[in-house]
């Protein structure tokens, strides 16, 4: 994919300065946490740090993880 083919949202993101991106990221992250997002790592068996004994499925499938409740027509 070429840069010109990137979704508009990403093109807007690219036009920000590094510090602007960091500040925007802080806002997005605050929203994510406010919506119940978890700080736990997503289960990733491909990661060398993945320890199945420490992964709590409740976090990914329960209240702490963000999940799609309804998909729009797009």
């Amino acid at each position, binding site marked *: 994919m070429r840069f010109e083919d*990137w979704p508009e949202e990403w093109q807007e993101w690219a036009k920000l300065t*590094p510090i602007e991106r*960091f500040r925007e*990221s802080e806002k*997005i992250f605050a929203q994510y946490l406010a919506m119940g997002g978890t*700080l736990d790592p997503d289960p990733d068996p491909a*990661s060398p740090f993945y320890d199945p004994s420490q992964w709590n499925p409740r976090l990914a499938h329960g209240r702490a993880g963000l999940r799609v409740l309804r998909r729009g027509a797009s």
Partner: protein
Amino acid sequence: MGGQACVFYGAAQVSKDVDFLILADEDNFDRLRNALETLQAPRIAVPRFDPAVLARGHAVHFRCKAPGVEGLRIDIMTKLRDLPDFEELWQRRTVVADEEGMQFHLLSVPDLVKAKKTQRAKDWPMIEALVMMHCRENLSAPTPEWIAFWLTESRSPERLVDLTIQFPAEAGRLEPVRPLLAHAIAGNLPALREALDAEVRAEQEKDRIYWEPLKREMEAFRRDESTPQ
């Protein structure tokens, strides 16, 4: 050096943790211990915080409890696969400062791209985005070093074809280093896609082999810590 660096560079929008590559030096470890104390961040997984363990390539994981950063995970490393030692990486780092003068020291884009060549599938689109962003920001005044970086690290077939058209001499010179450039020069997108996929698989295998003994060590650390003293 991880996802947060990708945010600064425009290749990601959020990261759930903060990864630090630090100088393995006793004074620096003391500063780190003080910082972790301020953040009320105990270790949350194996391995233990031990310079010798870090020097073998392990990451040590912490989780903050201090107000304002509750739950934030911090990963510390002192060595990265296939990358030079800290001093060299520090020399070529990127420094970003905010309005108040707060500085953020980031792995350079080429080093971050190398660090992201892992067995995790989610890191590869990040590499593509990092190179794409770097190319977009520097294409109007390219240096020989940047051109070589784009030609050897771009992961978008279309972008690679564009680059070989724009920099044919450099592409020809780099073909022995990255044979799939021949497909880009020929404009053969299906063959290029296939070769790019093979490149990913080969790099993932290298990462897997690198981590194999470290994973065995981690298993041993877990057993040690779960054994009642």
